[in-house]
């Protein structure tokens, strides 16, 4: 893929690299496990895996500060793990159990954490874009200096409400980063078959929103771009667009026949561009021993296995839960 790389700073510390490695590996292993549980019938309905795209959320979370918000679409497991939500609670929501983030009532596409400022998990393509601008609207209203990361895909980038949100976000200088996770396929439709222009990051230009293209397989490039976008928003200059070119190794959802791209294309990306392997290479070069990496692999495997166990052991929600949380009695308190 022809990607202009955003130059990555070279002064990244080994500790930072280790933390990116760990966070990306957690998402990868978690998603593999979710795929497995889906195959066993423990997870139902739709399940959209994030495998291949890990560097996007891990790089941007590294640019975020406490209190910043994030909102995304239905391919949301990676975002939740990256912002520090508990893998047990996420996996138990996937299996529809009481211990899940939404008590089993939301499922894969609808999870939230007020504590971690994660505002979903939305199942309607593009709907989260004005919602994200609205979160930023609330922050600007409260003058709290926070920034909202609003994630959507190359497919959603063709939705009309995205441009309505661009217009108002620019008009009102909202502190929102529009993150276009361009994995190059809108479900099974390649970008060139669905999108009139190749450079989606330039679609903010008519609204006066700066945008840039970022190599989404390189976590350091994503982090640098994130830093720049965050600074722009915090300075009160309004929204920023990051088109992060990435790749989804798995199907759109679990029931994807994969007829729209070749196995070779996927294999080539995995072998040559894998975000985790890239960091692994850097760590080995920095003389972090294989042992250290194996230790991390083992630790991650344990976390993921524990989440799978929890998600099987947690009971199904009580039938009374059918009738709760339809109306609130009082406004839930803000967590700051």
């Amino acid at each position, binding site marked *: 893929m022809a990607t202009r790389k955003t130059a990555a700073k070279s002064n990244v510390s080994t500790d930072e690299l280790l933390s990116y490695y760990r966070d990306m590996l957690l998402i990868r292993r978690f998603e593999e496990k979710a795929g497995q549980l*889906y195959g*066993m019938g423990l997870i139902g309905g739709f399940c959209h895996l994030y495998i291949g795209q890990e560097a996007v959320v891990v790089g941007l979370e590294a640019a975020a500060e406490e209190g910043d918000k994030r909102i995304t679409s239905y391919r949301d497991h990676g975002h939740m793990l990256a912002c520090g939500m508990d893998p047990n609670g996420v996996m138990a929501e996937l299996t529809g159990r009481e211990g899940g*983030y939404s008590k089993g009532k939301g499922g894969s596409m609808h*999870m939230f954490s007020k504590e971690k400022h994660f505002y979903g998990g939305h199942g309607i393509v593009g709907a989260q874009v004005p*919602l994200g601008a609205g*979160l930023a609207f609330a922050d600007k209203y409260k003058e709290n200096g926070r920034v909202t990361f609003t994630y959507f895909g190359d497919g959603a980038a063709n939705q009309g409400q995205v441009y*309505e949100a661009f217009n*108002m976000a620019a008009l009102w200088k909202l502190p929102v980063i529009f993150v276009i996770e361009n994995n190059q396929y809108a479900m099974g439709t390649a970008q060139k078959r669905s999108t009139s222009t190749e450079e989606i990051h330039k679609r903010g230009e008519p609204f006066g929103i700066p945008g840039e293209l970022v190599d989404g397989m390189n976590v350091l490039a994503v982090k640098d771009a994130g830093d720049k976008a965050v600074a722009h928003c915090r300075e009160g200059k309004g929204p920023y667009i990051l088109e992060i070119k990435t790749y989804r190794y798995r199907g759109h959802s679990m029931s994807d026949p994969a007829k729209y791209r070749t196995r070779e294309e996927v294999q080539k990306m995995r072998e040559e561009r894998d975000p985790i392997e890239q960091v692994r290479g850097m760590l080995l070069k920095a003389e972090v021993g294989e042992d250290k990496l194996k230790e991390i692999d083992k630790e991650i495997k344990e976390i993921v296995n524990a989440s799978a166990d929890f998600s099987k052991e947690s009971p199904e929600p009580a039938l009374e839960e059918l009738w709760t949380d339809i109306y609130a009695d*009082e406004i839930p308190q803000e967590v700051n």
Partner: protein
Amino acid sequence: MATEILMPALSPTMEEGTLAKWLVKEGDTVSSGDILAEIETDKATMEFEAVDEGTVGKILVAEGTEAVKVNTPIAVLLDEGESADDIETSSGGDATKSEQAPEPDKPAAQQPQAAPEIKAADTSPDWPEGTAMKQQTVREALRDAMAEEMRRDGDVYLMGEEVAEYQGAYKISQGLLDEFGPKRVIDTPITEHGFTGIAVGAAFGGLKPIVEFMTFNFAMQAIDQIINSAAKTLYMSGGQMGAPMVFRGANGAAARVGAQHSQDYAAWYMQIPGLKVAMPYSASDAKGLLKSAIRDPNPVVFLENEILYGQSFDVPDLDDYTVPFGKARIWREGTDVTIVSFGIGMRYALEAADKLADDGIDAEVIDLRTLRPMDTASILQSVKKTNRCVTVEEGWPQPSVGSYISSVIMQEAFDYLDAPVINCTGKDVPMPYAANLEKHALVTTEEVIEAVKKVTYK
């Protein structure tokens, strides 16, 4: 320990499939992500990938086998240092019980119902006896309600088309920009879908937005955000967050504006769990209900009517007058028939009741005020007294608010009915422009009178 590879479910509905082709053979080393086999479901042929790494120790189901049940072991993967001899053949057919998805444990009929239990009707007065009253239009009452709540709570703000500098397309927000400034009274571009989404997001973020739709006809552009984002999030988040906000504006027919600007959405929004719906008739209810709506922690759809904006009513002269949701108002007590209505439908209902009185028919007239929650207790209590009911609304008949009321009465008070309930509704046609046709397309007072005479066999 050897790991069994199970026949996967590859779609939400798959129960069995064909193991079309093995892409590995016994003795092959595989790692996570390698394609093991091709599996044919009812929808497509799909590749099945390895999750764990190891050596393929044994293939248990040969390629070409059809109707392989989900969760059947199809192969065994060996860890480092294990050999095929270590394999303990498991049951072969069923997967281990504990690994399976739980069965739904009870049939639906046994599920607990938060069924609307029929409470006694609340007939307490809306204001204390002796309260001073003042004459106000619905327009002024709505403005006062917003102004009072904006003074009370800094997180309440108003956004919509022409709400600020223009002072409101229907002058409902007159003076608010002057008092509260452009931060809290915000003109939006004409992009309902986008600004509604922004308002819902702002509500998630801790504000209490009031969204004005110039008319509810334009809210159809934004209905996904109202229903999918605002109404459902509290449930989908297990109670963690919701959208405390108000969607308000003119609803229903105005005069001579044609089919696209004349729809009554009462029955649409009334159907949605998670939304509350108010449709006031009088100025005092407009004021009291809007104040309650702004304070409510849930999303409220507040349906106003352009024709009523200029009508004056008595409004209690109190510092903080609110009306609770789910409490109907009995405008006129009577013994012969119950007329149930709401919003502008009340005009026809009250006019008909006056004329019927001249004919010696004593009608009780109930204004529902809110449609969700709906005060069915007051309706039932009245019907048990009068044994007859007519509903009145401007919206379409299939289905109408009245058809829901009819079903409640049939289920809860069937034995009390002396005649079938009649629903007086707007005609089942898009709104015509011509003055004579438009008048006929709406419900008319004569039709209400006729319906009452029919149910009272007069």
